[in-house]
């Protein structure tokens, strides 16, 4: 491969290599973002938010997190955990706690709990 030919290939090789490296990196995480994982994991989740012992209604939960309160996530449970953490780190008027209940590929239910630090 001549120097000119190599230069023509270089941007494409770097672009594709970045994808492979990121896919390998995300394999070691619990999220799938810029990763080639189409419908790889089926996560059935439910998000509940609590304030002063009262559960937020469905509309309030969906407006806050931008997702259906109960639905399927087709990539990784970590995506929902990350979303809830991001919202609670940036948005105002927190609930006291947020509970994500989820089942990954029909496995027994797991729970993730976010708590306000106040």
């Amino acid at each position, binding site marked *: 491969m001549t120097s000119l030919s190599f230069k023509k290939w270089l941007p*494409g090789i770097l*672009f594709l290599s970045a994808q*492979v490296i990121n896919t390998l990196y995300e394999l070691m995480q619990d999220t799938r973002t810029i990763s*080639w994982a189409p419908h*790889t994991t*089926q996560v059935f989740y439910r998000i509940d938010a609590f304030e002063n012992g009262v559960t937020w209604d469905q509309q309030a939960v969906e407006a806050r997190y*931008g997702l259906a309160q109960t639905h399927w996530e087709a990539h990784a449970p970590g*995506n929902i955990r*990350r979303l809830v953490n991001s919202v609670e780190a940036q948005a105002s008027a927190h609930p006291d706690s947020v509970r994500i209940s989820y089942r990954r590929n029909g496995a027994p239910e797991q729970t993730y709990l976010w708590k306000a630090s106040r």
Partner: protein
Amino acid sequence: MGKAVVPELVLAVRMLAIYLLLTGEFPFNGNQGGGRFYPLIELLDQLGTDEQFNLGVRLLFLSSIGLLLFSRFVRIGALGVGLAFVTGLLSCQICISVAHLFTGCVFLCTALSNHVTGTSLIRFQLAVLYLGADLNKVFDPDWWTGASMETLLVTKHQIPSYIKAAGMFPRGFLSQMMGIGVIVLQISIAILLLRRATVIYAMLLALVLHLPMVLLMHMTFGPFLFALVTAYGSLLTWPQRLACDNRLHSSVLVKWLTLLDFNRQMSPCAGNAKESPIRWIRTGLHYMAHPAMLLSMTVLTAAMVRYGQLIPLTLVVVAACWLYAWPQRKHARRAPSPAGV
């Protein structure tokens, strides 16, 4: 000229761009209407208000589509569309979508292509897609036990025909075989894509992998299916000249196609043979590579997706592959020459 993109890629991204416009696909894929929503990269949260940011991405997307459709600056247009897709995904946590990411990557690979790389970046992009998807499955025990497929097809989509078929085997057996089958298929496709000479076999396996999922789940995964078709299509040999045979072809249709022959590919068709439906069909099949025919097929595909006609769509894809792609398996594949655009 040194940066010229091969005509196969110009055609592919233009068809894909038209499909995106017709189906209303947009970089954001949120189920809440789309737009910036808790970006994954902090910088993207600091660029103007949500309205300004969303308008900016939309303008980038539409102006880049305009550029690649109506100007010579196909690479710049493709770069803009690709960046709009990636920006959309990175600026919206609820918009994560492999379908839209892959669509963006087809545009970005085109932007990074030139007369030396030809269509090879698209070929390697497809290989990376299948390799990545396979790695995610290989290291997940649920794909080996069948739990993943069982959840997808039985619990989530509740597909009656699959549930009925699975009932004929021991519990979970069909899902396990399907899961392992997908792992084997995806790695096989990735390997076959590494050599230009075996691309047609990769295409055949891709049909076996994707079309049953489209039919079973009754979805095209947003723009993914069409992006795949255009990506694989760009790897085929497309004729530079379209010759008419007046014993076989309809002179009326050829005349119409000649009027739309902006690439000057057509040769004139003399003769006054009687028109018949069989001649029209023959002409349609022979001139499948004519841009007007490809545009018609893009519009037809968008309409079939819009109205949920996925069985006819599947038949069209299989027929096109059988008639056009499969006969090319024995050709020694040369790298495409650069386009004049």
